[in-house]
């Protein structure tokens, strides 16, 4: 009994000291060895100084892929877009059904997600020197489960997403330049 009581006491003391506060992770604002490779994956250079053309093409691409544009500031080369989509995955549904069948428990599964993208352009070089404009895109998402709770907050960092984005962007730039 004393043992139990002292454990409970310790637990309460622990909660009192820590509260619900969890500080910011040490690496949250730190450049890591991965920073450079992430930057390369998320960036493409275009041999033009026409930043506006690239922004227009990017806005067109966001629309092509079902994003709405939330925010834009052309003078800083920024476009922000988002879309709300279904997040249900077959694997999770199957697991939930099995658990419900075997143990009669309800397991919340991923339901909805908001995907966000920001596209940033930047020109390099002077008027006379050979120059280019870079386009960098970053994606992230928030996933809610079937109880309406936030289940995942993450960046989307798979190389093939960025590969596909830039393949499509090249086409969009081509179309934009031809006024299609």
């Amino acid at each position, binding site marked *: 009994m004393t043992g139990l009581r002292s454990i*409970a006491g310790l637990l309460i003391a622990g909660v009192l000291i820590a509260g619900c506060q969890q500080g910011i992770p040490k690496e949250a604002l730190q450049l890591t060895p991965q920073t450079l490779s992430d930057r390369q994956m998320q960036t493409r250079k275009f041999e033009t100084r026409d930043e506006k053309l690239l922004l227009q093409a990017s806005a067109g691409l966001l629309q092509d892929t079902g994003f709405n544009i939330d925010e834009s*500031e052309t003078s800083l080369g920024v476009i922000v877009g988002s879309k709300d989509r279904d997040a249900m995955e077959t694997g999770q549904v199957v697991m939930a059904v099995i658990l419900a069948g075997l143990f009669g428990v309800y397991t919340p599964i991923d339901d909805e997600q908001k995907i966000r993208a*920001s596209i*940033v352009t930047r020109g390099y070089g002077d008027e006379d020197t050979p120059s280019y404009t870079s386009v*960098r895109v970053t994606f992230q998402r*928030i996933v809610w489960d079937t109880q309406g709770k936030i289940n995942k*907050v993450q960046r989307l960092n798979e190389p093939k997403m960025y590969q596909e984005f830039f393949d499509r962007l090249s086409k969009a730039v081509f179309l934009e330049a031809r006024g299609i």
Partner: protein
Amino acid sequence: MKAKIAMNKKAALVVLAVFAVTGCQANSKDQLFATSASQVQLRSFQTRAFDTTDSENTLRTVIATLQDLGFVVDKADLDLGTVSATKLDGYLLRMTVSVRPRGETQLLVRANANYQQQAVEEAGPYQQFFTALEKAMFLEAQEVS
């Protein structure tokens, strides 16, 4: 009598537990202006001066640095000189960075961050941010007192 003492103990435990969960907050509306660090101290953590007057280039470098750190931009405004961005990485970290002139030759860059539902009020994270920023700026971030 014994039962009464046991009851009291239980009640005390419940009160303790409630305090543990809620902290000592009497009115949640007080959060509007609540900070724990002093205003002057907070500003010195959050602010650096750079020897440049090019606020557009500085803002663009701030945006690039935020992207390097894994943020997605929420909002940017050249006239106001502000950028806001969010990082999602198992947690939610929101940052606003503002740029404004200081005298004839310098710009002041100020950053403030919110981690989950709390203001970041330690010096360390801001120091890290400015270290990343000064690398991208090719300029030294000078502390302002």
